[in-house]
């Protein structure tokens, strides 16, 4: 009797376990819009809900207030998603798959834009973009493009920087990646984001783009990672760890760990996003560090990888015109200035970087614009998550010495090809 009851309890417990797993992803099929739809005209009226990550600085609310004040017929509301990008994507996809009209405007990480567009979850905004394409920094527009159409407006952008310690225990301004590694080895090392996650993909691609390499061909159908450039970069990164120029600890570092180690005086050079600047100026090393754009690698000018968020309109929105009006407002120079000064979010409109208020908040604003202009998007593909996984797992294996650079390059190529051939 007891055993039977125990069995019943176990079965129920196990059922709940698997229910928890399966529940997350609902039916992918369904009717779904078979053709993509476009929105061309904006009209500032009606209710609009903006679903974007947590408004940590209050800058998103400021833009909404400004818009609502200027447009009495419209009412924009903020629906805050979690701070973590993974969670934002999960919650957005949950709503989109359910064809929910709850979110009108979506804050979409640049790497999700192609994926959402491929699923017909976004409205085509090509007409609206082309009316003012000149205003945007060209590289940022590339992240919103999929199959020759624009599916979103760039909202904020991002590019990596080299931070370096000046003064007594510092080093010289890096003249090239190779030289910086060497100088780091003589001082306290160079750190970056080397944990097995998206950040490692970015760190790897920055070197690879500088070396002139790619991981996917232009058409997005062939993997191109089994190349000399990939081997070269993997060898360079691996040698950095073997020689001690780069501490082994980077294999556990994400952005925050790197920043803490740099501010704690544990490294002479660091690769990180611009957000670390303001925080660094509040830390014990406030007066003894500086930032610069990526130095040349292999004799080529340094190239970055674009980050940031785009604003897209959900295909299930009941107010596309009102949504478009709000997005067009949010990317106006005046509003972009607020994002830059209040939230340190780099603007997508070139002229903002020349504004005195922005230069005051981000003293390296001109460098930042240069960095964004020279940066390239990550592979624009509906299977980007798998491509990135193929990159970071193999780079990580090479860093750990589990695979030779040659083997890692071959495996990366095969894994990316698999990803591209996903049903």
């Amino acid at each position, binding site marked *: *009797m*007891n*055993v039977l009851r*125990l*069995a019943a309890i*176990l*079965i*129920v*417990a*196990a*059922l*709940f*376990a*698997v*229910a928890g*797993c*399966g*529940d*997350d*992803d609902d039916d*992918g*099929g*369904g*009717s*779904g*819009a*078979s053709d993509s739809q476009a929105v061309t005209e904006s009209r500032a009226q009606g209710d609009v809900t903006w679903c974007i990550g947590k408004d940590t600085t209050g800058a998103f609310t400021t833009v909404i207030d400004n818009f609502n004040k200027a447009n009495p017929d419209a009412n924009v509301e903020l629906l805050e998603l979690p701070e973590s990008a*993974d969670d934002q994507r*999960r919650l957005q*996809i949950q709503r989109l798959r359910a064809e929910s009209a709850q979110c009108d405007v979506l804050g979409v990480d640049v790497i999700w834009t192609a*994926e959402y567009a*491929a*699923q*017909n979850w976004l409205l085509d905004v090509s007409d609206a973009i082309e009316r003012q394409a000149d205003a945007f920094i060209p590289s940022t527009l590339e992240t919103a493009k999929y199959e020759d159409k624009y599916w979103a407006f760039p909202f904020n952008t991002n590019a990596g920087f080299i931070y370096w310690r000046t003064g007594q225990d510092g080093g010289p301004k890096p003249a090239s990646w190779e030289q910086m590694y060497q100088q780091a080895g003589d001082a306290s090392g160079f750190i970056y984001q080397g*944990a*097995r*996650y998206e950040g490692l993909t970015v760190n790897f691609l920055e070197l690879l783009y500088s070396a002139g390499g790619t991981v996917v061909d232009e058409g997005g159908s062939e993997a191109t990672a089994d190349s000399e450039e990939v081997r070269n970069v993997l060898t360079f990164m691996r040698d950095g760890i073997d020689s001690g120029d780069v*501490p*082994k*600890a980077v*294999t*556990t570092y994400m952005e925050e*760990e790197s920043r*803490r*180690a740099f501010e*704690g005086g*544990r490294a002479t050079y660091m690769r990180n996003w611009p957000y670390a600047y303001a925080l660094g100026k509040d830390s014990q090393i406030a007066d003894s560090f500086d930032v610069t754009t990526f130095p040349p690698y292999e004799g080529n000018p340094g190239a970055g990888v674009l980050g940031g968020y785009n604003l897209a309109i959900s295909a299930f929105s009941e107010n596309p015109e009102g949504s478009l009006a709000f997005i067009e407002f949010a990317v106006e120079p005046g509003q972009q200035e607020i994002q830059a000064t209040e939230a340190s979010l780099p603007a997508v409109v070139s002229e903002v970087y020349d504004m005195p208020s922005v230069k005051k908040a981000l003293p390296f604003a001109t460098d930042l614009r240069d960095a964004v202009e020279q940066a390239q998007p990550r592979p624009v593909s*509906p*299977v980007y*998550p*798998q491509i990135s*996984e193929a990159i970071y797992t193999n780079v*990580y294996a090479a860093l*750990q010495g589990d695979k030779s650079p040659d083997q890692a390059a071959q495996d990366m190529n095969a894994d990316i090809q698999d990803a591209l051939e*996903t*049903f």
Partner: protein
Amino acid sequence: MEASTARLGRRWSRGGRRYGTGERRLARAMLAPSLIVMALVAAYPIGYAIWLSLNEYSVRVPGLSRFAGFDNYSEAFSSPEFWDAVTVTFLFTVISVGIELAVGLGMALAMHEAFKGRGLLRTVVLVPWAVLTVVSAITWRTIFEPNLGLAPQVLSALGLPGADVVWLGETGWSMAVMVLADVWKTAPFMALLLLAGLQVIPNDVYDAAKVDGATTLQRFRRITLPLLAPAILVALIFRTLDALRIFDLPYVLTRGANDTTTLSLLSYQELTTNRLIGYGSALSVLTFAIVMGVSFLYIRLVGGNIRSLVADER
């Protein structure tokens, strides 16, 4: 404990017979709502997950799907990632649950003794259990942060080796930290379950054994352990099933690096990150099957023991 509930159950059912079948019908009717809710909440999603696992859903063409039969399963069985995850999951389960049982038993025995402040200790000891796993995982990640974390700082202050070890960057150590974090959190839970078991063992048995001249060790081996067996079994089952589904710890501590990708983490990666709904669901269903299999194994292997124990007690 088991015996008394069983007796109670029989008394109830005898009572039921006296009131006739109408009473039973009423019982069924009153149970029906919860059974229906259970079916909706648990059975439907499971059936649905199984259905999803037999299909493939395109990640590039909207709304396109095709029936795949058992393709997703054969893909899992032929993928080294799946078998690695199975190995890692079982390794973690065996090590962590084993240590938790030992530590939990020790804690339970200590808390069973009568001493001042026992009530307070019993409450305090549960604190780790009350902390959310994600929160405790983030704490452990910070503790083992290279150079700046508490662990390397303490080790280097004491001049002990290991201050320079990148704990979460090495294959063996990553698993060790994961086990440590799990033991810290769940050993108190184990202890509490075992303590409940200890408290129903009548003192007369111990007194009689003492009169017969049994040593402390003999009393532990011959009285405590056998009479505690049902509680141990329940605690083991709870913890094993939990450990087999572990997700938060590897997700936060290592993101699955250095051989810490468990089955749940792999399913999450394929299902949520890569949006491979068919394949990801197949992995979930396989996890479910493994958990079910282990539960039945427990029942078959040790279920008989409970029955005989209960019989003995009577």
